[in-house]
């Protein structure tokens, strides 16, 4: 497993410092993130956190929802084809964010794309996953991929906490490099139990996330 050992050899102090000095101040001042129901967030691993995805800022907001002490335990899942595409980005993604890179196109014959995620969960990590698989159109939630359900089927006791983000797709949408300040809203839902059926579970997850989104002030483009 050359791609991602469960214990990526990254220094935890680097990301704690990076979040303390840069990410948290920028999020607090430039954006101003308002979080609803933070009490639903998992306090220990292994746990799965799933969120909608509109912006490169999403992963920073999700990670900063957790206290600094949990920072070394967080592992966001990210697309290998994008984040390992060049040297500096790859270094940052692996060393600072400690991503779990996965292959997006799982053709038959490839090895199991979820294996590194399972390994991280077995090591007691809190895994952050974007089931849409891509940032997509700004501020709209696309269909969810079924990887979450596969993971829960294999580990039925795992908690799966849905989180929805709004406003970040306006502040820094796909294809833009200029960050424009917008207020952002986050809602954390109650963990969703595994009910034994993949399709039913995905429908319930989609419904729970849509309900959470409806709770937040709307923020689409005109």
């Amino acid at each position, binding site marked *: 497993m050359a791609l991602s050992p469960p214990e990526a050899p990254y220094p935890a102090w680097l990301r704690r410092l990076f979040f303390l000095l840069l990410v948290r101040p920028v999020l607090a001042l430039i954006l*101003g993130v308002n979080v609803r129901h933070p009490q639903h967030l998992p306090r220990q691993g292994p746990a799965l956190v799933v969120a909608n995805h509109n912006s490169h800022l999403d992963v920073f907001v999700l990670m900063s929802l957790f206290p600094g002490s949990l920072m070394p335990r967080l592992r966001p899942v990210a697309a290998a084809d994008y984040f390992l595409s060049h040297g500096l980005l790859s270094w940052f993604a692996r060393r600072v964010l400690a991503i779990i890179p996965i292959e997006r196109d799982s053709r038959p014959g490839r090895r199991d794309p979820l294996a590194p995620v399972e390994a991280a969960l077995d090591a007691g990590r809190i895994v952050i996953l974007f089931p849409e698989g891509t940032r997509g159109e700004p501020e709209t939630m696309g269909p969810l991929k079924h990887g979450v359900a596969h993971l829960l089927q294999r580990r039925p006791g795992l908690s799966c906490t849905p989180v929805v983000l709004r406003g970040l797709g306006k502040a820094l949408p796909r294809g833009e490099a200029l960050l424009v300040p917008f207020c952002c809203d986050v809602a954390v839902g109650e963990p969703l139990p595994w009910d034994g059926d993949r399709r039913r579970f995905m429908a319930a997850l989609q419904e729970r996330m849509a309900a959470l989104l409806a709770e937040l002030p709307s923020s689409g483009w005109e």
Partner: protein
Amino acid sequence: MTLPPTPVLAVMAAILGLLVAASLASAVISRRRPGPDAENLRLRVRTWWQMVAVFLVALVVGRGVSIGFFALISFLALKEYVSLIPTRRVDRRVLFWAYLAIPVQYLLVAMEWYGMFLAFIPVFCFLLLPVRMLAIGETGGYLRAAGTIQWGLMTTVFSLSHAAFLLILRLADDPGRAVGPGLVLYLVLLTQLNDIAQYLWGRSLGGPPVAPKVSPNKTWAGFVGGVASTTLLGTLLGPLLTPLAWPASLAAGLIIGLGGFVGDLNISALKRDLGIKDSGSLLPGHGGILDRVDSLTYTAPLFFHFVYVLFRWSTYTGQVQWPGWP
């Protein structure tokens, strides 16, 4: 760092005393009648403590910090406004330039450049932000986008920056006297107390609403009682905090009472138009920052121009700005 004059410090101490009283009252209510109302009051008072602490520290530390404080308020208010209104994706870059107007406007305050301070947003931003929009070339929704962005800049940046300009005023006949902190404290204190007085008079007396379509809970009793209380308090505090004698202080109190009421309604109408209750959630128990500075967007420029024509002013760099009445 030079401390503000003694009367200013005394009024600051009185404000802290009021907050202590509010905290005690809130604790008593929480014990006697616990519930969502008591919890909301507790949050409200706690947020008041934080806002007052930041404001008073900014005012005491010095001019630069106080100007920076108002720049921050403008930024938070503009961000909240821009996040609430419908915007076009193509205008992201225009909005970015609109944000840049904030450091420029407050730099003009710090530079004491009165003419440009007055002209920058109403003239230059008004003319130049559309140029950026024309470069993008999207005409669908053009007028609405240009109009709403300019409205936001006028309300959250231009208007509020008048409070900061008070800080650099000096009396031409008595340049050694630091009048800025007293004027700002007078303006902000009366504006906030006016909000509270209108609410309390309205709640205790009830009666018909002033503007039923815009804000059904603002009653005539609240309006008249609030303006009267603010005028009375303004008359008492004016000679203490500002160079105004009592008749001018009475007029200033009246201006702040009336202006505050309209400013409050102005943002209420905006929120009703957008179909929202609170402008945001930055200040627990209060709502958003626009909910807190709505009155100030009217009282700051009105009070500024009122005191501006009453005296011969100079600034810290010594230019005489207003020749005075002939």
